[in-house]
């Protein structure tokens, strides 16, 4: 084990500016996520085509299949967090989630044209995704010193996004090579997913945490309703939910870009790649910056970037607007996605961390769902510009409120003060 990975508080302080090593466990988890995301995004990219073209489902039926399990994942996530906390089985629970998702490709392959089989395979994939997220983030947060959590999550998210960008490319390459053999995409995706599980088993340490390797102390039972009691965590949860509810959803932003600037619809599929590329580039620097200047500030500034994107859309000026909006969206994700986990993790006891992070992620996801639905309704009622104005005002209000709600230094008790 690397010393640096343990973040021992008694280690000599390193001179500032020196590049520290990212914990090996974080790199391993990042690699697992990268590989797994290639696998899952391969399927996501071709599934609509496969179902409608290959199997002749109507778009209505496809929409039904697709939306069927989205609500359930939130609950599964909470379950995954709870399971992981119970006895500290983070790796095992996360691994089961990864394995389930990988096996779901095999289900797609074997289901043939049977709609029920495909539905079951999609359900298994969502189940796996829901189960693994919270334990994985808990593992990341437990694998490094608390003062560099932002960087750890930044590295992980950058690797994750890399996989998400590579996935569709891999899928399209397989489709080109085989003249639209969708089953070949599922077969390759299954192999890659299995590799992800294997990497997890081989390289992610089972017992995370700053404790030295060796017989781990008997894990404390997860405290009863611990998370919501903690005032610091509660504030983070409320602030993230409030901000999430004023987030209109990327897809709406892309659509607004297309409509306002009258861009060709074919660009729609490329716009997310632009934002993802910015996210990929900035995830690590933003995480480091968050560690240095405070994650609270970074989280709020990230949402300011989103507000900036809304503002840019309200004053459209052709090509620079597209670039600006995509860049701001990338900054938003870089400064908030992993940073939120890094912000909340130190406030949670190690024994209840996966469950706590699950609550936080679920809360944010539900709030965002609400925000997107509200924006959709506002768009239908008032038209796109008034709706966007409303969204911008709501976000500004939420930012002001969140800056009061968010605790000034949530990590205070654990983090060593490096200020002279």
């Amino acid at each position, binding site marked *: 084990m690397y010393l640096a990975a343990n973040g021992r508080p008694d280690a000599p302080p390193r001179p500032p500016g020196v590049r520290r090593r990212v914990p090996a466990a974080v790199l391993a988890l990042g690699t697992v996520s990268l590989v797994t995301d290639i696998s899952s995004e391969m399927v996501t990219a071709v599934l609509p*085509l496969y179902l409608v073209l290959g199997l002749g489902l109507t778009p209505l039926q496809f929409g039904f299949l697709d939306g069927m399990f989205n609500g359930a994942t939130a609950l599964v996530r909470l379950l995954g967090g709870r399971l992981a906390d119970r006895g500290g089985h983070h790796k095992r629970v996360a691994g089961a989630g990864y394995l389930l998702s990988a096996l779901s490709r095999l289900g797609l392959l074997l289901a043939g044209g049977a709609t029920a089989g495909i539905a079951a395979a999609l359900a298994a994939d969502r189940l796996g995704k829901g189960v693994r997220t919270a334990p994985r983030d808990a593992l990341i947060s437990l694998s490094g010193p608390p003062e560099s959590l932002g960087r750890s999550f930044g590295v992980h998210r950058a690797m994750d996004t890399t996989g998400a960008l590579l996935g569709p490319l891999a899928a399209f390459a397989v489709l*080109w090579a085989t003249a639209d*053999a969708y089953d070949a995409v599922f077969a390759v995706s299954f192999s890659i997913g299995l590799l992800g599980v294997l990497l997890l088993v081989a390289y992610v340490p089972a017992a995370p945490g700053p404790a030295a390797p060796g017989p781990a102390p008997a894990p404390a039972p997860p405290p009863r309703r611990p998370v919501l009691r903690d005032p610091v965590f509660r504030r983070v949860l409320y602030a993230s939910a409030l901000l999430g509810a004023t987030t209109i959803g990327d897809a709406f932003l892309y659509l607004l870009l297309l409509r306002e600037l009258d861009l060709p619809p074919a660009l729609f599929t490329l716009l997310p790649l632009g934002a993802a590329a910015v996210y990929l580039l900035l995830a690590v620097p933003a995480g480091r910056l968050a560690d240095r200047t405070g994650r609270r500030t970074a989280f709020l500034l990230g949402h300011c970037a989103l507000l900036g994107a809304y503002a840019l859309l309200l004053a459209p000026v052709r090509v620079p607007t597209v670039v600006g909006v995509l860049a701001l969206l990338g900054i938003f994700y870089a400064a908030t996605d992993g940073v939120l986990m890094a912000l909340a993790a130190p406030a949670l006891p190690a024994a209840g961390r996966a469950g706590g992070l699950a609550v936080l992620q679920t809360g944010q996801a539900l709030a965002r769902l609400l925000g997107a639905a509200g924006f959709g309704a506002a768009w239908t009622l008032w038209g796109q510009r008034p709706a966007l104005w409303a969204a911008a005002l709501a976000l500004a209000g939420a930012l002001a409120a969140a800056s009061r709600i968010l605790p000034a230094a949530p990590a205070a008790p654990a983090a060593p003060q490096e200020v002279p």
Partner: protein
Amino acid sequence: MNPPSRRLRLALVVTAVLLLAGGSLGYVLHARHRERPPAQQADASFGALEPGLYFRDTAGGRIARQGGPGLPRVTGGPSCDRFHTAGGHALCLRKLPGVPARTEALVLDRRLREVRKVTVPGIPNRARVSASGQILSWTTFTTGDSYNTAAFSTRTAILDLRTGYLVKSIEQIPLTLDGARHHDSDVNYWGVTFAADDNRFYATVSTRGATHLVEGDLRAWSAKALRENAECPSLSPDGARVAFKKKVSDDPRAPWRLYVLDLATMREHPLAEPHSVDDQAAWLDDATLAYALPGQDGRASDIWSTPADGTGEPALLVPGGSSPADVD
């Protein structure tokens, strides 16, 4: 971590990578060789639009003809995913391999030789030729236009062979809905059917969660909605009635029933077909409709026919077929 176990672990992972990569490559190569034959042109012997029922043979994906009840099926037409023919022209929609999905719309003459080829984005969905054979329309499903990336939207084109003028998407046609000019970002058209004058047409428009039957005017370039909940219209040869599919259930497994609407009285009646029909029906004559249903006995789809007045019973017309079009 002691070195031997680390080395062992690495060896195991490398072995697994090699096995999985080999398996994947093998599967891809297998899929590459197994794939269906490339799109075929019509055989020389098939090259004329003789009287009979034309359809897509689901077994090989090629267009076939059935001269009459009891007569043998003649296969040998071009490979198409959707097909329609009338007035000495045929329209063949063919999905091109690769991603993003693209469709080739082939206009064929009486001898089934290519007159014109247009490549559009999306997956083949509907194809119609006007009775005179001069105006053609097709619809494709496209992904990615909607705010929900998984949702589909449609793109409908109209081609006028007399002038050669092609409207790749009729989405911008001025639309009147409930007496008022309608603007929205979510307007989608599909399933065009033409009147005998080669000017009036009917189509489906969907906007704000509802579908409408619209009547359009090509020369005036305008369209107005006639009534709600009518999809994939098909105008009878006498021009008096429109067959359409009506959404009667929220159950996504069986949402539609076939109806016929009398344009003079604007009254509709259901047809005898009890199953959910997701097809643009075709009139065999003024009294009979044909349409595709999911096939029995493992076939991809079958063509059924039923009386247009709502009486009688549906009858299996062509096992293993879709895209029916009658040529007298």
